[in-house]
């Protein structure tokens, strides 16, 4: 066991754990976060996704010690000043989730996709989201929500620039 300092959703936490423990268990069990969830533990599904350094990272295969000190954002930390992120808002507007269990990974992966490519084509959305699985099969709706989020984000940018 050793002490590791984590920066999660703009808060500092010191945890005393086995350094190789996957980040997922620390976030869920020590920090009591419920956004990242266990789906496969193998890096195959995306349910455990968190944001680190602008990337969507699979916390189930990320040793905790490897992200010490880095800014980590979970689904809970995505909204700013009580305002939902435009991606989250698009998810509500399109009524995306069924059971919702995978949607943490869908939302955060889409967030990174749009940050890197604000106006993705259908093919780019399929490509960029392909490794994030949903067993309720909300794919069609997710893709609609990503396009909606792209539109609202573009409109908001125009307003800022106007």
């Amino acid at each position, binding site marked *: 066991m050793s002490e590791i300092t984590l920066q999660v959703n703009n808060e500092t936490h010191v945890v005393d754990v086995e350094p190789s423990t996957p980040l997922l268990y620390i976030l869920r*069990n020590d920090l009591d976060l419920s956004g990242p969830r*266990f789906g496969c533990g193998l890096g195959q599904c995306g349910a455990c996704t968190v944001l680190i350094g602008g990337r969507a990272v699979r916390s189930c295969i990320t040793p905790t010690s490897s992200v010490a000190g880095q800014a980590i954002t979970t689904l809970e930390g995505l909204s700013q000043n009580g305002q939902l992120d435009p991606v989250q808002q698009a998810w509500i507007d399109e009524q995306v*989730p069924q059971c919702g269990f995978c949607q943490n990974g869908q*939302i955060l992966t889409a967030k990174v996709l749009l940050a890197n490519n604000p106006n993705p084509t259908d093919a780019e959305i*399929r490509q960029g989201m392909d490794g994030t699985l949903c067993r309720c099969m*909300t794919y069609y709706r997710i893709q609609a929500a990503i396009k909606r989020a792209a539109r609202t984000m573009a409109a908001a940018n125009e307003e800022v620039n106007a």
Partner: protein
Amino acid sequence: MTSRRDFLKNTGLLVVGISSASLASAQDAGPYPDIDFHQLDSWIVIREDNTATFYVGKTDLGQGTGTAFRQIMSDELDIAYDNTDVVMGVTDITPDQGGSGGSDALQTDGWPMRRVAAEARRVLLSLASDRFNVPVEQLSVSDGVVTVTANPSRSITYGELIGGKRFNVTLTGDRVNDLTGQAPLKAVQDLKMTGTSPQRFDIPPKVDGSLKWAVDVKVPGMVHARNVKPPTAGAQLVSIDESSVSGIPGFIQVVREGNYIAVVCEREEQAIQAARQLKAEWKKPEASPFPPSDDLHSFMRAAEPTSSGQPSFEGDPDAAFAGAAKRFEGDYFVPFVGHTAIGPAHAMADPTDGQLTIYSNDMKSYGLRNGVAQFLNMPADKIRVVWMDGPQAYGRTAADDAGFEAAYLATKLNRPVRVQWMRDEETAWDTKGPAYAMRMRGALDADGNLIAADQDFRAIDYNHVGYNEHDSVLIAQLTGRRRTTPAAGRASVSTDSYAIPNRRFSTHVVSLPLIWETPLRTGNLRDPDGPQVTFGSESFIDEMAYQAGADPVAFRLKMLEAGTGDDDGFRRTRSIACVKAAAEAYGWDTRTSPKPIADGDILTGRGFAYSYRSQTIAAEIAEVEVNRRTGKVWVKRIVCAHDCGLVVNPVGLRHTVECALQYSLSRALHEEVAFNSEKVTSVDWGSHPSLRHSDTPEKIDIILVNGDPNPDRPDLPHYGAGEASCKPLLAAVGNAIFDATGVRIRSVPFRPARVLAALNAATA
């Protein structure tokens, strides 16, 4: 947080809505007697501020049934939807409606909810009548405010009338589904919320991360367990070497009984490590438990059935075959398919105070409570099950198994235990939808009419596992506490309204060599047999259309329109309406299949299939692109015409159908349980592929037909949705592949290797 019971005890009424999240921390001492469903107060509580909470014994698997329950109950009660909430599936505070299953949430269980709400409205109006000294007929009510019609300045809210008090009204009816008061239901024309689409209340917390799920429940002193499953099917545990794990930090205990092993540690990652590291010696069974999955179809064809149904007849099929102008026969196959939820099975059980509280996403919380009570030999009123959201699959999933395991371990250790399966466990050991081998024979007369059909369905379903059965649940099998007599299982037949003058349906159940302690145990999976049997039957009907030189839609319509009778749900008439609506929405051009085979790598085609489930009709068209170099199939477009009677929430329904279609698409293109002759080998998302973003159709059109020929009927029923639309798509995709390529593939899934092999075989 105070419990419903405490409120009733302390104040004589229930004042707050109970959210699942706060339930997790509520430590009520039992006992937990059943809620008396005859009491109106068990279903509806109205507070002084004119808000209401509904208590229903159902669960919501993410299809918006909770929202729909609020809509129908608000509608009958005449209260604003926004001033209501709903509590679902908590065994000690919601009346037992059995939980979810069979897409019957609205079809069956919606009725008592509506009648209870209507009765509450009647009682409230009579209270207002007494208060104003005005006959009920001279009162009007809207959004929970009762007004004297002639003098609108005289009004009173429901909250003022009953808030803080109980109804004390006893309803009648022996069973919960028969429950009724004195009040009649509103006529369909008078329903206001029904048919509108308020957004689902469960979505914002699922999107902002605030929802607490069953996987999130933590209580002081809770420890983590992981199972160690037999390495091969039917293996017997010889010995374990506890010293192989006792040095792991946080190690608490290895629990072993018979062939069941669990390791328990303080922390989750420790339990995972211990389960991986535990040294155990197992002995394989003498005989092979099953044939490899590649041989399953031939195994099923050759197997001696364990039981056969009495064939159902129309006309004289044998004579019709003998005199036919053209005869056809085909063998079809659908493999085992798993539920494989996105998150593995889990539950947490807390034995504090000699009671047991189980937190679970099991869709049948009451069944879980009763089953665990029997399994642990505990009085049922010492156990409660708190249903919470979870990674949902449909049917008899391993959530049942995990619930029993958590309860067993919690009582064994006498402390709260959380158990969760690992990915390979879930994918390998979750119950399977039965594999089907189907032999279809058809005969045409000289004019191309289908004059006889002989349809034979065999399912591997011997020893089918039921819901929450204390003597068939996996831990009962592994610990040697299972029953001795296997369940007979069942084979189903396809459903359509075709007029085929001579027809025979036969069914057979067959068995694998190993039926206990096997990962290939069958249990209900979404429908549960419809996608399989409809694949056989609707592929076959398509082949008969080809044999007859007819357009596949015209061929079917002719058989539907040749019928003369109908049932009280107008199922045949509504089938015709759906078939036509799908064809029209797609822009179906009448021609025979296959279309002339084009040049180039990509071949396109369209296929049709239709079926019904109970009274719900689904007619579907798939448009495919087949890459003839790689064998890859992309379903570019899906059209579904759907009729489930009265629609409560159209947007919610559309999304449910949309996801059901993609679920079927996953089965059509990808899903198959793979195994060798000793164990399941499809154990993760690599070896058990599922639909992905890149497979998503470009366009999905859903047409809500709701073509009741008598739409003004005041009691227009709501039928089940969700599962009917899963049925036709496998066949529609296969029929489209035939249309595109001229090659008929009679087994799913249509993975690239299978498609390519079929294309190559056809050109060889």
